[in-house]
């Protein structure tokens, strides 16, 4: 509340024509050349993430108009790792100290560990890696999207509430698939669900466009699931190579969840609750396509900077960084409750949606999962179990 008198004094003291205080926000992304799409349904997006940042910039600018703050977004979209590192150095050399990132974990760490980034704050808009919130955490990196542990917990809580206790886990072969599957295994233990089988998917994708390809995949999935008794198939296929091919083809009729079917996510197309229709429409109008979770992560990151600058009543990057990491920060992000950062690992606390392509099924945490401080901390890595020990 201390910020208010300062702001009001500012409003009263600053004539309308005074130079607005500049709040530049850096946006650093790795945008690799796209691979061939796996399906005609989803054209590969060239502007995922940054479009969310742009919508949030306009939101910040509207607010800034009333507070004499001028927000800008300094975008650097680089095609490969060397270009990202060069762009980061250039940004930091130019004095940019508040940077939103859309980078994979190893690159994010390389930027965070640059000596010239010592007094910068990074807002990781798109990663889900648990390692970045754990052993590899950094004090000056905040994470906007839910971690894999949070996504897995959101799903497992729902399965537990539904009493779908017997889970067939089907991980893919990629590194991210393994990380997602690890999070699911941990979460199944946490919520007392039983993995009746943990069976990697080894069937090679890629032949689906051939005539009668559906016969091959149908037979393979039926064979794959034969002789197994389970309530729900949980798949970890982050690249979308086979996850869509599991429903309707198993030996027993069972729902699919995980990266496909019922998906835990920060954002989903069918989501319209808590005023989120407004953001869905704003985004659609600006980007000409629906918002994805990565777009939403970037929107939250840029909005978080705006919120901190507004509440701190300052355009000074150090004041913004301090407010972002302080106890008073809260973000309204259409989830029906305030979102705050966990002090122990810089993760944004948030409800997680459970949705399929066409409908919002539920929102976790599920009622009944209690916690001594915040029910949102029943999702993901809680303070007593964190391995994050950032250097001060």
């Amino acid at each position, binding site marked *: *509340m201390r910020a208010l008198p300062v702001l009001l004094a500012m409003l009263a003291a600053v004539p309308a024509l005074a130079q607005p205080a500049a709040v530049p926000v850096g946006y650093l992304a790795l945008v690799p050349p796209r691979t061939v799409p796996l399906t005609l349904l989803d054209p590969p997006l060239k502007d995922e993430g940054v479009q969310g940042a742009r919508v949030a910039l306009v939101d910040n600018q509207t*607010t800034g108009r*009333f507070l004499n703050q001028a927000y800008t977004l300094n975008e650097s979209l680089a095609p490969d790792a060397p270009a990202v590192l060069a762009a980061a150095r250039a940004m930091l050399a130019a004095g940019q100290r508040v940077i939103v990132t859309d980078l994979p974990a190893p690159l994010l760490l390389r930027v965070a560990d640059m000596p010239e980034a010592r007094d910068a704050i990074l807002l990781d808009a798109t990663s889900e890696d648990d390692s970045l919130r754990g052993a590899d955490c950094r004090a000056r990196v905040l994470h906007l999207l839910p971690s894999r542990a949070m996504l897995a917990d959101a799903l497992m809580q729902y399965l537990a509430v539904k009493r779908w206790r017997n889970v067939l886990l089907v991980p893919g072969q990629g590194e991210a698939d393994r990380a997602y599957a690890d999070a699911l295994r941990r979460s199944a233990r946490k919520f007392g669900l039983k993995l009746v089988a943990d069976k990697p998917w080894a069937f090679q994708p890629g032949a689906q466009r051939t005539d009668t390809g559906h016969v091959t995949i149908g037979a393979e999935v039926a064979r794959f699931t034969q002789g197994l008794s389970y309530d729900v198939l949980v798949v970890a296929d982050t690249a979308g190579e086979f996850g869509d091919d599991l429903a309707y083809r198993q030996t027993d009729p069972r729902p699919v969840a995980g990266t496909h079917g019922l998906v835990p996510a920060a954002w989903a197309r069918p989501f319209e609750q808590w*005023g989120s229709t407004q953001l869905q429409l704003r985004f659609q109008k600006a980007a000409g396509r629906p918002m994805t979770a990565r777009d939403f992560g970037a929107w939250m990151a840029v909005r978080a900077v705006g919120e901190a600058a507004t*509440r701190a009543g300052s355009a000074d990057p150090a004041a913004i960084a301090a407010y972002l990491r302080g106890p008073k920060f809260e973000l*309204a992000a259409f989830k*029906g409750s*305030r979102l705050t950062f966990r002090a122990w690992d810089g993760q944004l606390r948030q409800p997680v949606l459970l949705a399929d392509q066409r409908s919002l099924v539920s929102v976790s945490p599920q009622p009944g999962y209690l916690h001594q401080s915040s*029910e949102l901390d029943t999702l993901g890595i809680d303070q007593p179990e964190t391995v994050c020990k950032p250097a001060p």
Partner: protein
Amino acid sequence: MQTRALTLALLLLAPAAQAERLFVSNEKDNTITVIDGGTLAVTHTIKVGDRPRGIVASRDGKSLYVCTSDSDHVEVLDLATLQVSRILPSGPDPELFALSPDGTTLYIANENDNMVSVLDIAAGRVVTEIPVGVEPEGMGISPDGRVLVNTSETTSMAHFIDTGTKASIANVLVGSRPRVARFTADGGQVWVSSEVGGTVAVIDAAAHKVLHTIPFTIPGVPAESIQPVGIAITPDGGTAFIALGPANRVAVVDAKTFEVRKYLLVGQRVWNLAFSLDGKRLYTTNGISNDMSVIDVEALRVTKSVPVGRLPWGVVVTP
């Protein structure tokens, strides 16, 4: 109990004296529920446009203005025939509005385009639009009609607007996602509820400064569930009632000391509030339990629950 039975008997004997009616907008059902203020029985359910939310009665009590958000207009319900008699333009996605004290003008928050539309009711047209913050929502008007307060949800401000010049006077930062703005009867203060911030800001209407921020804590209820929305202040300015959304409670606040005196357990996701004309009852709309709670204002007790339509949003009482 005896007094209530007696009152009820008297009310039943004297139907002319209790012509009071309640109107509840049901966001999900696209209906308005009409309730007899004496018996608290539902008398009619009226089909209106899509997603009715904000409702307000005309000053002569003959019409009800309804923001039908998804139909992108305001409907006028004739309270004699209980039929929609007129459609008024509103700008896109009208959610909430304020009626000028002289009854001629509606100030409408358009959630989708960061504007407040000013509607001349007689002419049936939007005469001007005032740019405000992101996602305008709450609308409050001073008792003399000179000052309009609009809240913007993503900008988290209360915008003070001169209704004469249509120019902004001041912008006051409040807690996150401000919803309802309500002037006190003497026009001295504006109370603004912040749904996500979980607080109510009491603003000095002349100085445009936050005098006090009221926090709410309820044992056993997670802080995130405390989401203040509806505000009702007694005409004497002594007591304020604040609907706390998914906390399922109405806070009773001493409007002089700003201390919370009591929390009243009502239905689920309590949203908006209205007093009976004699000020003895307070009605609440409960969005998830699909009912309306009745609070005895003097005893500070919840006395009854009345089932209405699905997702009840606003409530209005007319003579």
